[in-house]
């Protein structure tokens, strides 16, 4: 400890330090004023310059004779600086007696402007009367350059952000167009039948994997399908496209819906082999009109059962249990079912985005049973009403609806009292 205390003053003992310290003591106040690393000037209260140091004269490129007694402080400023000086700087200074850190621009004899930071203090007499103004001037060129750099960086960041937003908007637009190409632009008119559909896309930057279609086979028959491909994004869209055109072509070739699903199974197995199995689930079917009745023949591969909301308020679920995933296995089997629609009946097809939604505080699966009882409360209902009610239900799921959801309803309008059967 004692040796540490003894060392405390030893800094002065370093050779050469003493000499430097002495030189500093001989530095005159006058020289310090004239050659300080900042500008000094003193003005009368009317602004006339009474004293100015060599540093500032050097920055401005002026001689002492030109300035002292001949120019006022505001003469040193640019037009904008002068205006600011007159309207803000001088009044505030008179009021407060001190003003610091004000950014101004000075004119130099050579032309370029000199950005400066100015601090002024009013010196008063003992009686408190203002006598003169002392001002220090700091060269703010570096600081201005720094600020400009900051501004430039911010502009560049803003521009990058604008570009990213524009790119994102373009991507979103392209995806929306592509998505629409995977769905029918409008559902065709089917004589004597009401049709409605809804498509919920879970993400606006990711292509959905659900699809549906409805198209005529001949004068009396229409084919439809609705399904869900595995995965999302461009790969899913390519799979959807292949699936859609395969099912369309197959239906035109052979209207048996199970045969269509078998063709699709073969095509998908052939296209996506080995380590990258890609599959879909789908319901495909044919509508055939016979008088007041429309016969439905549909087949399913791994897809949730279709529902029929009957005109008398019952709900049938068309079980196709046992129908397998399409594109996963060479020997896949598909299960067919038939039903008939009468006036007032509506067939509902949906993807499992609806039944797999998480609802309530406990994030329970919405589930098949909840959907059936929802449909039972709704029945009887037209195709439009079924889709509207389910769209509202999906909307109510909020965040719980994590997946894409496609809905397609095909209904025979109920006979109305004002129709051909006029009451007596």
């Amino acid at each position, binding site marked *: 400890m004692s040796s540490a205390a003894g060392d405390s003053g030893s800094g002065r003992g370093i050779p050469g330090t003493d000499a430097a310290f002495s030189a500093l003591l001989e530095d005159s106040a006058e020289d310090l004023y004239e050659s300080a690393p900042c500008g000094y000037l003193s003005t009368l209260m009317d602004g006339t310059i009474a004293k100015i140091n060599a540093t500032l004269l050097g920055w401005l490129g002026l001689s002492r004779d030109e300035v002292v007694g001949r120019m006022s402080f505001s003469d040193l400023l640019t037009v904008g600086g002068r205006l600011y000086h007159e309207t803000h700087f001088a009044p505030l200074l008179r009021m407060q007696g001190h003003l610091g850190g004000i950014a101004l621009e000075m004119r130099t004899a050579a032309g370029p402007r000199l950005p400066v930071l100015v601090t002024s203090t009013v010196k008063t007499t003992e009686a408190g009367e203002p006598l003169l103004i002392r001002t220090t001037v700091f060269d703010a060129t570096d600081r201005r350059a720094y600020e400009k750099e900051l501004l430039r960086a911010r502009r560049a960041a803003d521009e990058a952000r604008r570009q990213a937003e524009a790119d994102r908007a373009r991507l979103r637009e392209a995806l929306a167009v592509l998505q629409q190409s995977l769905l029918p632009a409008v559902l065709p008119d089917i004589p004597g039948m009401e049709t409605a559909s809804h498509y919920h896309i879970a993400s606006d930057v990711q292509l959905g994997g659900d699809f549906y279609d409805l198209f005529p086979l001949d004068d009396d028959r229409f084919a439809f399908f609705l399904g869900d491909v*595995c*995965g999302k994004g461009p790969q899913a869209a390519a799979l959807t496209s292949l699936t859609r055109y395969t099912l369309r072509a197959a239906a035109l070739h052979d209207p048996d819906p199970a045969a269509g699903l078998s063709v699709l199974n073969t095509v998908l197995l052939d296209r996506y082999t080995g380590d990258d199995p890609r599959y879909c689930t789908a319901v495909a079917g044919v509508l055939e009109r016979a008088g007041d009745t429309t016969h439905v023949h549909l087949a399913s591969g*791994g897809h949730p059962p279709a529902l029929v909301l009957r005109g008398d308020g019952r709900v049938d679920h068309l079980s196709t*249990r046992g129908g*397998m*995933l399409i594109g*996963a296995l060479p020997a896949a*089997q598909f299960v067919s079912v038939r039903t008939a629609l009468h006036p007032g009946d509506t067939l509902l097809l949906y993807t*499992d985005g609806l039944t797999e939604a998480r609802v309530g505080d406990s994030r329970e699966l919405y589930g098949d049973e909840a959907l059936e009882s929802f449909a039972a409360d709704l029945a009887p209902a037209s195709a439009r009403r079924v889709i509207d009610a389910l769209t509202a239900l999906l909307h109510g799921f909020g965040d719980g609806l994590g997946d894409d959801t496609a809905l397609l309803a095909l209904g025979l309008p109920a006979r109305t009292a004002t129709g051909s059967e006029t009451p007596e």
Partner: protein
Amino acid sequence: MKPLTITASHVPAGLVLEVAGDLDYTNAQRLRHAAQETALPPGRRLVVDLSELEFCDSSGITALIAVRNHALATGSEMVLVAVPAGTRRLLHMTGLDQVFDMRDDPRSLTGR
């Protein structure tokens, strides 16, 4: 989210893969690779034990199909053991309950 763990162990009857945690889009590839990397002699049985599986989505089902394809290609049979209710529901809905051999008790299969 529970992390996925896949534990392989050899038993007299063949190979057991214990799949625990969440099997989903982000990690299903790991199950495929695990099945491919483990050498399974022809005629042996691949047992996939799902008793500790917490969650399985459609990507997980895809991986199970790929594992089954791999087992069949090497002349082995694949058995799913202790399939949780949620996964069982998915397999029923997609008709795959007819394809996968599903058993409840692993011990009779593995000889452990």
